[in-house]
């Protein structure tokens, strides 16, 4: 809680570099070199206390992210969804808590993911040569004719042989409407960002985030001369765009060995950029039960109703009218927790 308090101060610019641990309470530093309006500072500080109290009533505290990750990730999510003139952002929604809980839970554990070997993560340089992959144990249980059948002729391996299949794939020429098209297939043939085959790493999500956050911070220090959270807003956004563009991949020299999963040597930065962006928006817009979208600020922003089907607060509207309307009606959103309370006869 102390460091949380400290960050609030840092954001509002009230505290200078205060290295001593402030136990609690509000520091009201005297800004030594100008006509500081003490009353204004007091007012701001009082507002801060109120905000803090509100925040302490909701979900705070971390179960998975360590201290350096907390500071870093908080900056990242606030870059992706800033608090601005249009409305609240990742901070107010508590996006970082959503991500923290997710990393501690099924998402981080990759509980509902298929994690078997062999793994073929993208981005292994072509100079590494074709990757030889051993067939799985299932191979032995197939009859010979099935083994023959399951290896494409000419696709590597040959009939009947339990040979490895190498990639990247060959090229193929098609004719359509009289025109020849030559297509070179990569292993993943440009998977849509986020599609189910996009993640091919041998580590679970928590590990993926741990490695990637550290790599991002290292990249920020090496190429932007400081920790991410200290960069200017413009540079913070640029670092993320660099990830999307896979820029860090070209900037490790010399590249680490292929099976070393540190840094962005074997993790595509754009894969992490996707994960960051996706989870930030999820933290903004998923049900508050999961730690984000606190006070439903995210739903309020996008105009989503949650579980309010038109009469949750006694508005007297119903789905059959709302669904055939030709102009929108904004509903005050309701959360799953509220819905469950109501459904089971609670408050």
């Amino acid at each position, binding site marked *: 809680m102390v460091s949380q308090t400290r960050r609030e101060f840092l954001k509002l610019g009230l505290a200078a570099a205060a290295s001593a641990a402030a136990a609690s309470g509000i520091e009201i530093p005297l800004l030594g070199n100008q006509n500081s309006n003490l009353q204004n500072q007091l007012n701001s500080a009082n507002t801060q206390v109120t905000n803090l109290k509100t925040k302490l009533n909701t979900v705070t505290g971390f179960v998975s992210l360590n201290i350096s990750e907390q500071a870093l990730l908080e900056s990242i999510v606030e870059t992706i969804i800033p608090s601005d003139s249009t409305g609240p952002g990742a901070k107010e929604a508590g996006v970082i808590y959503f991500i923290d809980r997710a990393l501690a839970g099924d998402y981080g554990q990759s*509980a*509902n993911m298929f994690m078997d070997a062999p793994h073929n993560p993208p981005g292994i340089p072509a100079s590494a040569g074709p990757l030889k992959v051993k067939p799985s*144990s*299932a191979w*032995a*249980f*197939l*009859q010979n004719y*099935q083994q023959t059948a399951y290896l494409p002729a000419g696709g590597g391996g040959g009939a009947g042989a339990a040979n490895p299949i190498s990639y990247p794939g060959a090229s193929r020429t098609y004719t359509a409407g009289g025109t020849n098209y030559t297509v070179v297939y990569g292993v993943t043939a440009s998977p849509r960002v986020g599609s189910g085959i996009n993640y091919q790493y041998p580590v679970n999500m928590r590990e993926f985030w741990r490695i990637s956050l550290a790599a991002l911070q290292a990249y920020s220090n090496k190429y932007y001369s400081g920790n991410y959270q200290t960069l200017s807003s413009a540079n913070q956004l640029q670092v993320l765009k660099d990830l999307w563009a896979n820029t860090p991949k070209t900037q490790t020299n010399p590249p680490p060995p292929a099976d070393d999963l540190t840094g962005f040597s074997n993790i595509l930065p754009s894969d992490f950029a996707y994960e960051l962006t996706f989870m930030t928006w999820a933290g903004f817009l998923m049900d508050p039960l999961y730690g984000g979208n606190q006070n439903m600020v995210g739903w309020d922003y996008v105009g989503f109703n949650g579980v309010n089907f038109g009469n949750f607060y006694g508005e007297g509207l119903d789905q059959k009218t709302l669904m055939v309307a030709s102009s929108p009606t904004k509903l005050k959103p309701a959360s799953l927790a509220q819905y469950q309370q109501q*459904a*089971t006869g609670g408050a």
Partner: protein
Amino acid sequence: MPVLVVPDKAKPLNIPVFQSRIPKPEELVVLDKPLLEATLEVGNLLKECKAKWALAGDIGEILNGVNVQPDHLTILSNVVGCEEINKKLERFQVVASRHVETQIRRNAEVEAKPLPIMIKSYRSQFNLSGQRLNVHGDLRIKVGDWDWGDPLDYEPEYVYVIGVKVPVIPLELKIQLYRGLGWYDRVSKIHAAMARRHHKIV
């Protein structure tokens, strides 16, 4: 083709398995075929009926998703409607319309006292391939020694039975009726059906 060799499999661990609850037959709302066919027949024959009529009793409820098991059909109408229905269902008629007053088997429960229930109506009876149908015109109810009630009136709701639209007595009305009679078991059956229909748990 030779049978595939089946490897010695390890039991899988940590794969989420949802508890499965197979419903018991008595929980399922399924109408018996003979009655269903009789309902269809009636629905088709009464399609052009000008008078107000509706399926009542248990059949009216099960078509609205209530978990009851009718063993005959009931129609509620008015006296004029009965004449029209008699004509349309002529070939199935077994008892001509006449004014009847009877006590029904089940008593009302009012302030923990059982009271007999009398009904009177202009009633005719039909037999559709072994399925009984009672048609009541201007049905009135008397509980204990209270006055006779007015003829039951209603605005029908509509349900579909394999593509035939049929009117039924609204569930709301049935609830009021059952409450008045103290038949709370029937009230909760309807509540359960309404809950299932509006995605609320009871």
